[in-house]
């Protein structure tokens, strides 16, 4: 090889590597055959700090993202690909948003003052405040009873009526702060992650009985998802990082797979029978449910460092999408990444 050719070759390698480095910063390149394909990036340039949990209005495709570090809820119109509003008044370390379709309202839980703030989802006007003693965190809405369940304090799950915005007596005392929890639709139970003690609390809403399942193999369990049809509960443990699958009848762990680090959200996609677990390490882990007892990790899709909260709300508009919150980095603002699910 002549010196000139060698120089050209070196330059080509250099350029290729620079392009690669640049491309990695923009967004990881898509694989069209991957189970999740990034289809849209919606910028939120002025939003700083850590994102927490999100809600989606399936009818309009509007997404509401709590940003703990920014004391705001960001409102995005996913179809139009833009952020339309930032709710900042009245919020103090917001942790989650729930959308109430019947009244077109959103509920925002706040760690700062322990309150749940209820806003009109169109005008963003504050309608009401429901107080909890401290650290209001995870929210779930039960459309049948029109109740909002609120995980709070150290810890319990409380309730309020979504039509009157009045608290309902009979909080479920848990003895530890509740992280993610899931409501049965066909049954009366609530499954609750108690991360600080590596347990799952099982509440019976009718009898008020509470059972606790101790996780032995892996704990510090924050996110949770439920597959009610197959009687399966999914938990992403942080210490060590494992995906645990439990039988909801027996409480037994029936599968355990290597998991994602630094997890805070997970979702079960009943259409494709897949589990999505984003990791702060900059990946989305995708598991296939072969059948109720067998699971396989089928992909580990590069995302962005710190992107640990996501939302999956089934079909929204024409697509089934996974929404991933990307916190602001030093040279690039915060973003919402929209992934389309693929076969």
């Amino acid at each position, binding site marked *: 090889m002549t010196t000139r050719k060698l120089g050209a070759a070196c330059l080509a390698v250099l350029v290729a590597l620079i392009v690669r480095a640049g491309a990695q910063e923009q967004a990881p390149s898509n694989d069209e055959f991957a189970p999740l394909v990034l289809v849209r990036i919606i910028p939120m340039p002025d939003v700083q700090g*850590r994102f927490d949990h999100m809600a989606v209005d399936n009818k309009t495709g509007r997404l509401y993202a709590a940003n703990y570090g920014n004391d705001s809820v960001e409102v995005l119109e996913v179809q139009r690909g833009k952020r339309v509003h930032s709710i900042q008044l009245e919020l103090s370390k917001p942790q989650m948003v729930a959308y109430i379709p019947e009244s077109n309202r959103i509920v925002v839980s706040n760690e700062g003052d322990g309150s749940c703030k209820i806003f009109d989802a169109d005008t963003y006007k504050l309608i009401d405040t429901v107080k909890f003693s401290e650290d209001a965190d995870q929210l779930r809405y039960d459309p049948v009873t029109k109740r909002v369940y609120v995980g709070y304090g150290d810890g319990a799950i409380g309730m309020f009526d979504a039509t009157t915005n009045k608290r309902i007596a009979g909080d479920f005392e848990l003895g530890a702060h509740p992280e993610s929890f899931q409501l049965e639709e066909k049954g009366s139970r609530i499954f609750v992650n108690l991360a600080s003690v590596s347990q799952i609390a099982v509440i019976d809403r009718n009898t008020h009985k509470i059972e606790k399942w101790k996780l032995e193999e892996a704990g510090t369990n*924050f996110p949770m998802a439920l597959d009610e049809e197959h009687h399966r509960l999914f938990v992403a443990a942080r210490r060590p990082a494992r995906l645990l699958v439990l039988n909801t009848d027996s409480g037994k762990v029936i599968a355990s797979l290597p998991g994602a680090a630094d997890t805070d959200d997970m979702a079960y996609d009943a259409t494709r029978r897949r589990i999505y677990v984003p990791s702060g390490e900059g990946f989305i882990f995708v598991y296939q449910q072969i059948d109720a007892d067998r699971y396989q990790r089928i992909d580990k899709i590069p995302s962005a460092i*710190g992107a640990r909260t996501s939302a999956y709300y089934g079909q929204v508009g024409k697509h089934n999408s996974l929404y991933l919150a990307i916190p602001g980095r030093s040279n690039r603002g915060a973003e919402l990444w929209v992934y389309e699910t693929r076969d």
Partner: protein
Amino acid sequence: MKRFGIFCVAVLLGGTAFSNLSFSQRTPVSKASPPLRLIQEIPLPGVQGRIDHFSVDAERERLIFSALGNNTVEIVSLFAGKVVHSIPGLDGPQGVLYVPENDRIVVANSGDGKVKVFNGTSFDLVKTLDFGKDPDNVRYDPLAKKIYVGYGEDETGAIGIIDATTYERLSGDYNLGGGHPESFQLETSGPKIFVNDPDGGNVTLAIDRKTRTISKWQLNGNRFNFPMALDERDHRLFVGTRRPSKLIALSTETGNIVATLTCAGDTDDMYYDPHSRRVYVIGGEGMISIFNQKDADHYEMRGTIPSSIGARTGFYFPTHDTDRLYVAVPSHAGQSAELWVYEVQD
């Protein structure tokens, strides 16, 4: 253009292995579980130049660090994932210390020789103490309510003392007998202060606070011993040297070297975690070395994790769910400064 800076340096060095390492953070498949995983990059807007030492306000889950080249102290809320305050007007801040009992931030300034004390809530300046030349590392003895400050150069090198309730300078400085003190550690169950003294002949000193005697421990020809960590339970002291890049474990009773291992280069901070029995060495060459302590005398490298060129200081801090290592990545090649958060893996 995140890793472009690292990349450029790697290309300039002609080290292909190096450039591979700079990309490996994005490699999608992990084999054996790495001891650290990068999970967050907190932006440090406007922070220029070198970043020096850290302290923690555990109650508020805030990291506090000296942005030496920026003449500021930055306060980062770990849970919010952002800088919540920046104290301006400092002069080459180096060591920083948070005192929880009275909510004070103590900052040692190399430029004007002053140690400044700030209110930890309002960030108002409440006291200025003159240490003459180059106050640097700061340590706290919560039992005696004393703050120790390494300062001075050549024959004036010493450890000075501040009362942590009145914030008055106390008498009885420990003169080192030559050289500027770098990192030092206080025994809590004994009277000793261990001090790295690279200027005074690349030695580690053991000061007995009761008798005021100083023992001088040689480092077997290894030079430029800057960072230090202490394992009191096993009576072991860890010292990081830069020439060559070594982790040296010494007996705190005899000063004898019990182990010497190669570690990341250009190190300025190191930590020992007694629970996992691991030593973390943060190296400015863009590496973090992790060592397992098998027993007091036996150590093995657990792994080397790439970070970023110039990232030589950081802090080890357990949060409510996982232990984390925070590493300061200074601004470089158009890339603004960041605080990288590594989750410790069991």
